[in-house]
C-alpha cells in the first residue's frame, strides 16, 4: 500500500490545524485518501501543536509514529519529532525559527518580507516547501489554496511562488489515479451531517471540547439549514431547553463532554420518565474532572449507560470514524424519536476532531421518519399504554386535546399517581419499550467484523480505536470485532461475531477496560487487555507492539 505521512508542527495560534487541512487537500489531489490527527494542548497561543497527515491508497483513520516529511515551524518541532523521520524522510523548516543540522531550511523570513505577506502566511510557505519537495506542482497548490483559504490569497500565493523559486523535488509523491475529490470532514462535521440528514431542527449546546466544533459548525450553517442553534447559560439549561423544545415539536440534539454531561444527567432521567426524545453527542476526553481537555479517551461508556436516577431505556452508539459518525448519528436521531428515548452518540476527541476524506454517498437519505403520531381518535393520552410501550406522539396545540408531560410517576393521561399497581405498570411499560428498541436494534449491523472469519485471535474494540486495530490486525491476520451499538448491548450479535475465536483481546483507551467489563457481564470471555490512558491515540507502531506482546 502506497502511503505517506507528513507531520507539521509549531506553536499554538499559528493556524496549524488549518495548515494540516490544506496538506490533506493537497494529498487528496494526488489521489490519496487522507487522515489528519491534530494534537494540541489546552491553550490559545504558544505551547506545542502538531498535525500528522497520513495519505494512503485506502481509507484510513489511524496515524503512524514514523513520518516521511517533517515540516517544522519552530525549534521545538524539530527537537520533539526529528526521531520520527524515516530513513529517507525529508525535514523542511523555517530557517528563521529553526537551527538544525540536515534538512532543508526555507528562507521564509526573507520571502515574507519581500512580498509583504502577513505572519500567518509563514504556514503557506512551509506548505509550498513541502509541495516542491514532494513534486506537487504549483498549479495544484494554487488551486487548493484558492479553494480552501480564499482570504488573503494573493499574499499567500506570492509566498508560495517565492518558495517554489528556491525549492527542489526531494521525494516525489506519485499520483494515484482514479480517486474522486471528496470533502475532508472532521468527526464533528460528519456527526453534524448525520443529524441534519435525520431532520435535526434545533441544536443546543454549551461549548466544551471536544464537541465545541460541532456547535460552531452548526451555528455557522444555521441559515443554510434553517436551524435553531442556541448556546444557553450552562449544560443544565441546555438539556432542559432541549427537552422543552422536543415537546414543542423540534428534533433536537445537544453536544457536550463528560463534565457538562454530569450536569445533564438529571434532565436525562426526566427524558427517560417523561419519554422525551433527545440526542446527546457526548465527546470523551480524559478525566476525571477537567483532566486533559484537548486529548482523548474512552471512559464514559458505563457512565452513559447508567447515568440518571431510576431505570429507563436509552440508546448508545459509538462510531469509529467520520463515515460511521454520519450514519449512526442519523440512526440515533431516528431511533430516539421513534422510541421517545434519549440516544447517545458517544464520540471521543480523536474521532471528533480527527479528519478524513468523506464520501458524500455516505450521508443517509433524508427520510421523513418520526414518532408514531396520535391518530386523532378519542381523547389524547400522552402515555397511552400500548403493546410495545410506545405512546403516540402529539405536540401542542391540538384543539380540544391536552398534552400532559410529567416527571412524576403518572397514569396514561400524564397525571401524577402514587398507586402501586400503576407504578409497576409504568416501570413495565418503560422496559417493554426498551425491549422493542433492542429488538429493532438487533435487526441492524450492530457489531462489525473485519478480517479472516477463521482467525482465532480477535481484537475486540470500539470507537476510535477501531481503525488502528483493523490496520494492525490486517498485518497479522487477526480479526477485529467492533460493537458500534453499545446499548442496548448487542450480546447475541457479539457472541455470534466472536464465535470460533480462541483469544479475545480488548483494545481500549481507558484504564478499566470498559467494553471488556460489559462483555464479561454478558458472559463473554475476554482474555487480554490492551489499554492506553495517556490521552493519545494508538499509533500503528505502538499498537502493533502491544498486540505482539498480548498475542504472544
Amino acid at each position, binding site marked *: 500500500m502506497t502511503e505517506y505521512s507528513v507531520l507539521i508542527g509549531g506553536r499554538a495560534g499559528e493556524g496549524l490545524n488549518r495548515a494540516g487541512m490544506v496538506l490533506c487537500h493537497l494529498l487528496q489531489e494526488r489521489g490519496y485518501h487522507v487522515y489528519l490527527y491534530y494534537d494540541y494542548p489546552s491553550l490559545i497561543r504558544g505551547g506545542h501543536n502538531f498535525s500528522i497527515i497520513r495519505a494512503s491508497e485506502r481509507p484510513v483513520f489511524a496515524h503512524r509514529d514514523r513520518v516521511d516529511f517533517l515540516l517544522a515551524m519552530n525549534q521545538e518541532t524539530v527537537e520533539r519529532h526529528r526521531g520520527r523521520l524515516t530513513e529517507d524522510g525529508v525535514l523542511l523548516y523555517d530557517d528563521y525559527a529553526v537551527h538544525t543540522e540536515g534538512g532543508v531550511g526555507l528562507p521564509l523570513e526573507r520571502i515574507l518580507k519581500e512580498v509583504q505577506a502577513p505572519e500567518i502566511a509563514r504556514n503557506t510557505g512551509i506548505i509550498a516547501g513541502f509541495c516542491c519537495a514532494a513534486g506537487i506542482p504549483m498549479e495544484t497548490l494554487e488551486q487548493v489554496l484558492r479553494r480552501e483559504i480564499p482570504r488573503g490569497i494573493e499574499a499567500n500565493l506570492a509566498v508560495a511562488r517565492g518558495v517554489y523559486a528556491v525549492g527542489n523535488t526531494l521525494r516525489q509523491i506519485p499520483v494515484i489515479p482514479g480517486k474522486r475529490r471528496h470533502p475532508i470532514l472532521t468527526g464533528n462535521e460528519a456527526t453534524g451531517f448525520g443529524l441534519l440528514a435525520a431532520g435535526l431542527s434545533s441544536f443546543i449546546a454549551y461549548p466544551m471540547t471536544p464537541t465545541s466544533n460541532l456547535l460552531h459548525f452548526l451555528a455557522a450553517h444555521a441559515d443554510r439549514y434553517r436551524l435553531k442553534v442556541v448556546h444557553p447559560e450552562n449544560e443544565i439549561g441546555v438539556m432542559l431547553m432541549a427537552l422543552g423544545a422536543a415537546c*414543542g415539536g423540534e428534533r433536537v440534539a445537544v453536544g457536550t463532554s463528560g463534565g457538562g454531561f454530569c450536569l445533564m444527567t438529571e434532565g436525562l432521567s426526566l427524558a427517560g420518565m417523561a419519554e422525551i426524545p433527545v440526542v446527546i453527542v457526548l465527546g470523551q476526553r480524559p478525566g476525571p474532572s477537567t483532566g486533559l481537555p484537548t486529548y482523548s479517551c474512552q471512559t464514559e461508556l458505563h457512565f452513559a449507560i447508567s447515568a440518571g436516577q431510576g431505570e429507563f431505556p436509552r440508546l448508545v452508539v459509538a462510531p469509529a470514524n467520520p463515515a460511521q459518525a454520519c450514519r449512526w448519528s442519523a440512526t440515533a436521531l431516528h431511533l430516539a424519536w421513534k422510541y421517545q428515548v434519549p440516544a447517545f452518540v458517544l464520540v471521543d476527541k480523536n474521532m471528533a476532531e480527527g479528519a478524513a476524506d468523506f464520501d458524500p454517498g455516505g450521508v443517509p437519505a433524508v427520510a421523513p421518519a418520526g414518532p408514531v403520531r396520535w391518530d386523532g381518535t378519542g381523547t389524547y393520552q400522552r402515555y397511552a399504554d400500548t403493546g410495545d410501550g410506545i405512546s403516540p406522539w402529539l405536540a401542542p396545540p391540538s384543539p380540544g386535546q391536552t398534552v400532559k408531560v410529567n*416527571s412524576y410517576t403518572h397514569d396514561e393521561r400524564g397525571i401524577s399517581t402514587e398507586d402501586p399497581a400503576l407504578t409497576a405498570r409504568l416501570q413495565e411499560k418503560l422496559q417493554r419499550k426498551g425491549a422493542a428498541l433492542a429488538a429493532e436494534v438487533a435487526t441492524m449491523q450492530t457489531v462489525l467484523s473485519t478480517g479472516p472469519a477463521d482467525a482465532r485471535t480477535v481484537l475486540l474494540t470500539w470507537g476510535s480505536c477501531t481503525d488502528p486495530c483493523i490496520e494492525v490486525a490486517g498485518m497479522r491476520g487477526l480479526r477485529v470485532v467492533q460493537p458500534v451499538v453499545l446499548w442496548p448491548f448487542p450480546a447475541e450479535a457479539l457472541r455470534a461475531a466472536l464465535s470460533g475465536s480462541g483469544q479475545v483481546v480488548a483494545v481500549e483507551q481507558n484504564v478499566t477496560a470498559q467494553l471488556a467489563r460489559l462483555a464479561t457481564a454478558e458472559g463473554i470471555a475476554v482474555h487480554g487487555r490492551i489499554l492506553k490512558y495517556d490521552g493519545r491515540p494508538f499509533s500503528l507502531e505502538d499498537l502493533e507492539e502491544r498486540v505482539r506482546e498480548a498475542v504472544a
Partner: protein
Amino acid sequence: MTGTTLVTDAQNTWCPGCGNFSIQHALRAVLLEMASEGLPLEQVVLVTGIGCHAKMADYLDVNSFYAIHGRVMPVATGIALANPDLTVICCAGDGDAYAEGLDHLIFAAKRNINLTVIIHNNRVYGLTTGQYTPTSPLGFRGRSTPKGTVEKAFNPLELVLASGGTHVARGYTRKQPMLKALIREAIRHRGFSFIDVLQICATYNDPHEAYDRLAYPLTGHNPGDFDAACRKIREWDYNREAPIALGTFYSVEEPSFEERFRLTPQSPAEREAAIRSHLEGN
C-alpha cells in the same frame, strides 16, 4: 380540556387555607376569560417545577410540562423556541426559581423570552416540610435552620429588574381581583413577564396578618419609569417590615428572544438539497 372548567379530576391535596388555591383560581379565571375573548386554549402550555405549587400541572386541564425542581425556565424557553405562537405560563416555587434554578430565571429575563412567570412565593419549601428559602426573612426558623437563618433574604424583583426583565409585578394571594388582573396583564405582555406572588403557606409560613397590614396597591406609578420602579421595588426588602406595594412595577416592550428563531422547518427535499450543495463545497 373537558370544556369550560379547566379542572382535571385529579384529587386536590393542598392544605386547607393554602394560597395555591387562590393562584389556581385566578389563573383559571384569566384563561377562561381570555378563551372567551378568542385565545385558543390548546395554545396554552403550563410549565411547573416541583413543590406544592407545581401540582397546578395536575389540577389544570391545559397542556402541561410537570418538570423538575428548579428547571421551569429552560423547559419553558425550549417550548417557546419550538413554537413562538404558544402561550407559555410558568408556575414556579420560590425554592424552585430562587434557589435551585436561580440562574435560569435570570437568563430568561436577560433574553426577554416571551414567558409569563408566576412565582408562588410562600417563602418556604412547602413540599419538603418547611425549610427556609432565599426569600425567607433573616432569622427564619425552618427545619434546616432551627436556630434561625444567618443570611438575609434577597429581593427577587430587584434581581429580575437587574437581569433585564421587561415586566415586573408583585401580587398577593389574599388580593384575588388584583392577582387576576396582574396575571392577565403579564400574559398579554410580549416578552418576559414576572409576577412574584406572596402566597400563604397555611402549614409552614403564614404571615398573612403582616401582609394584610402592610400591603397596598401601587397607584399613580408609571411602569415605564425605571428609576421609579427601582425605588418602589426597594421599599420592602423581604426582611424587615415595611409597606409592601402590590401591582406592576415595571413594564416596557423590547424585542423578544423566541421571535428571532421563528423559522419554517425545511422539507426533506430542501434539506437533502442543502446538504448536497454544502458537501459539494457551495
